[in-house]
Each structure stands twice: as C-alpha cells, then as structure tokens.
C-alpha cells in the first residue's frame, strides 16, 4: 500500500474510533444523568402520560401487522420440517416459545427503535437547533427532566405492553397457519401453548424489553439533545439514533440471553 493512502486510512480509522469512544462515553454520562434526574421532582406525570399515548398510538399499526406475520410465517416455515420428523404436535409449543422468549421482544424493540428512536431524535434535535431547549433552560425549567426523562420513562413503560400485544398476535398468527395446514382445533392449540410456556420463558422476555425501552429512549434523546449543525444535524440525529439503538438492542440481547440461560437453566 502506498504510504499516502495508508496515512489517509489511518486518519479515517482514528477519527472513526475517536467518534465511537466519544459517543460511548457521551451516552454513558447521558444515561447516568437520567438515573440522577429520574428521582427528583417535578415528576411531569402529564408529560409522561402524553408520550405514552403518543408512542403507543404511533407504533400500534406496524407492530400489529408484524406480530401477526411473525407467528404466521414462523408456523408456515417450521411446519414441513416438523412434519418430516413426525413432530407436528410440537408446532404450538415451538411457535409460542420462539415468540415469547426471543422473537416477540427483539422484533418489537427493533420496530419500536425504528419508529420511536428516530422520532425522538428528530424532535429533540429540531428543538435544539431552533433554541427551544435553550429557551426552556433560560426560563429555569430543567429541559433534561422535562424532555428526556419523560420520553425515556414512556419508552420503558410502553415497550413491555407492546411486546405482550405482539406475542399475543404472533400466537394467533401461528394458530391460523397451523389450522390451515393441519386443521388443529383452537382449544387444542391454546392448551398446548399454555402447557409449554413457563414462568421462566415469559418473565425474562418481558424483563429485557424494559432494558430495550430504555435503550430506545436514551439513544434517541441523546442524539437529539446533543444535535448540532442546523437542519443537517436533525437528519443525522434521526438516522444515527435508529442505527445505534438497533445495534445496542441486538448486542444487549446477546448478553441477556447468555445471562438468562446461565441463571434459569
């Protein structure tokens, strides 16, 4: 490699690494500020309620479609293999376990990140570049508590509810696929589903959505709250929030799955 190209590549790599570590440390301090501020009054309950309604309504149509299709496709894809091994009676258990333990929480969180993290990033960054956050600070209102804490709390609260809803729809979707191919009765299907699901399957799946909710809210808020460079910064905050939140969700899931397996098995 020519020395000049090598030098250029090293500069790009070092800039990338600097930005990465700056983001990691920035996000860490931002998250710590959340835990410091969340217990301090005023609690802005009305604002939290408004965000919960807003985020829930915004995400409901897309998670409805996704939830139903996950279950349907999962059952359709698995059915031929299960039939080949003579294990078609395990289809309800397979669908419900896959959905409740992994697919439901992770896919809901990823969709939620795409819809909400970018929205929060865009909203807060536009408030930042139009000096609305400064105006709040000057009027002696803590903008972090009013804008960031309320949004993160709303995400933490709403994501487990959405996940439960997606799980339910996916199980229904799975039933329709199995009913159409195997003619299985609903009562039999639902009995098999509940028989296979244990406390150890449902709780870890739901518990991790609390962490995913925090990631979505914190990343979106962090990117938006610290946006610079005018309208360009608004676009950048919105897109980078989705990428970063999705990546963090998948990485965290990997760690949490390992932890769950260690703790519960």
């Amino acid at each position, binding site marked *: 490699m020519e020395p000049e190209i090598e030098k250029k590549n090293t500069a790009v790599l070092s800039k990338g690494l600097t930005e990465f570590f700056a983001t990691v440390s920035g996000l860490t301090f931002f998250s710590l500020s959340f835990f410091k501020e969340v217990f301090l009054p*005023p609690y802005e309950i009305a604002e939290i309620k408004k965000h919960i309604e807003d985020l829930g309504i915004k995400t409901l149509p897309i998670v409805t479609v996704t939830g139903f299709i996950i279950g349907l496709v999962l059952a359709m894809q698995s059915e031929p293999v299960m039939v080949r091994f003579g294990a078609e009676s395990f289809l309800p258990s397979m669908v419900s376990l896959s959905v409740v333990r992994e697919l439901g929480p992770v896919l809901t969180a990823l969709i939620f990140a795409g819809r909400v993290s970018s929205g929060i990033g865009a*909203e807060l960054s*536009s*408030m930042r570049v*139009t*000096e*609305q956050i*400064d*105006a*709040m*600070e*000057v*009027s*002696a*209102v*803590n903008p972090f508590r009013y804008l960031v804490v309320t949004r993160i709390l709303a995400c933490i609260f709403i994501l487990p509810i959405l996940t439960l809803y997606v799980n339910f729809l996916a199980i229904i979707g799975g039933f329709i696929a199995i009913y159409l191919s195997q003619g299985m009765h609903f009562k039999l299907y639902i009995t098999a589903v509940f028989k296979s699901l244990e406390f150890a399957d449902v709780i870890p799946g739901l518990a991790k959505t609390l962490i995913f909710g925090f990631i979505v809210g914190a990343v979106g808020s962090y990117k938006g709250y610290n946006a610079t460079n005018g309208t360009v910064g608004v676009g950048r905050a919105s897109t980078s929030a989705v990428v970063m939140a999705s990546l963090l969700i998948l990485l965290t899931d990997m760690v949490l799955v390992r932890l769950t397996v260690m703790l519960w098995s």
Partner: protein
Amino acid sequence: MVEVKNLTKLFGDNLVLDDISLDVKVGENAVVFGRSGTGKSVLLKCIVKLLIPEAGEIIVDGKNVYKIKEKELNELRKSIGFLFQGSALYDSMSVRENLEFPLIRNKKSMSPEEREERVIKALKDVSLEDAIDKMPDELSGGMKKRIGLARTIISEPKLILYDEPTTGLDPITVKEISSLIKELQKDLNVTSIIVTHDLLCAQIISDRAVVLKDGKIIYDGGLDYLTKSDDVFLKDFFTNENIYANNRSINGK
C-alpha cells in the same frame, strides 16, 4: 444590574469576545450593535450561562453566574427574560401553552384564573389576543416574534435580554415593540440589553449604545454621537452616506 468583567469567549480557534467589560445599571436600556458574527448574541448567552466563557466573570443582580449553584442560578433565571432571535416558541404547544409554560413551573401559587389573566394581558401588549389558541406553525415570522416577546415579559422579569427583537418586522410593528420595551423600562424599571441592527428601534429605546467590533467594545456611550461620528466603521454602520456614494459609483453618476 449586570457587570461583565474581562469576558473572553472562543469557538475553537475563533476569538469571538476578546476581554470585554460592560456595566449595565438598574433600569438602563443598553443597545448592543455590531456586524453579524461579532459575538453580540454570544454575549447575551454568556450572561444567562447558556454558554461558558474561557475567561472573565459575569455578575447579575450581585450574583456571579459562574460560581453560584444550579438552584441559585435557576432562581436568578426566574428574574431574567430572554427573547431569542428566532423566537424559540415551543412548537408542540399552542400560544396559550407557550405563555403558561413558565408561569405553571415558576409561579406555582398563581391560580388558573390569574394565569389566564396574565396570558391575555401579555397578548394584548403585543396586540395578538386572537392568536391565543393558534399553534406556532400557524403564525407568521413577525407574529412569532411578538408571541416570543409576550412569553418573555409574562413572568415580569427584572432583566430582559433581547436578541434582535425587531428583525423582520414592519416599521409600524417595530415602533410598537420598541415602545413596549421602553414602557417596561419606565413602568417596571426593567433593565434591558438589546442586540439589534435596527436604528429605529435603538432610537426609541436606547439610553446607551455599545458597539462591538472584532470581539472588542469600540464604543460605549450615547446614540447621538454614533450617527455623527467621523469613524469610517461607525459611519458605514450608522449612516446611509456610503451606500449612496457606492450606488452613485456603480451607476456611474
């Protein structure tokens, strides 16, 4: 009321404010002039600690804004109004909610009726009572500026910092807004620092003019002298003489 001592502010390598000092007395209207990018808005933001300077200190109402604790700073900020250049209205809230926002949080003892009364009075002051239930995106630029002013004065602050309060407004509204700023000074003894390029506004409200150039204060005194000055920069800034001379040379007359 406001003492700025040896303030220096840098953005990267760019020296925006270079060791400036300024003392604004209670009840005084100080107008700050200067070309775009000379640090006028930066000066205002340093006063309320939205920006932190590299050197120097600012004392507002006897308190050093960089040394007091967050709680004290917030108490101090309750007595300061800030009109932003772009109005900075909260775009997810209606005009009423924008005006109520500081009252709900900072004047908790105020009843909803008193709050409503205060909102209507502030809107009357800026002649926009009809806009009370409108959203910011339904307002023109000039209307936004006036609502921004109403939100600034609604808490009855002791010190108001205006960042270009009349830019983009028609001459009649400029006179109305300028007269309102003057009235606030007369009736409530409000101290104001006004950053503007608008000579008409300055003529109505100023007790004192400060001119910034290359990060330094090059003039601090009465407005009258500025319009008669022989200094090339001040002449260029405050009179139209050179514009006419330029036009004549371009047109070859």
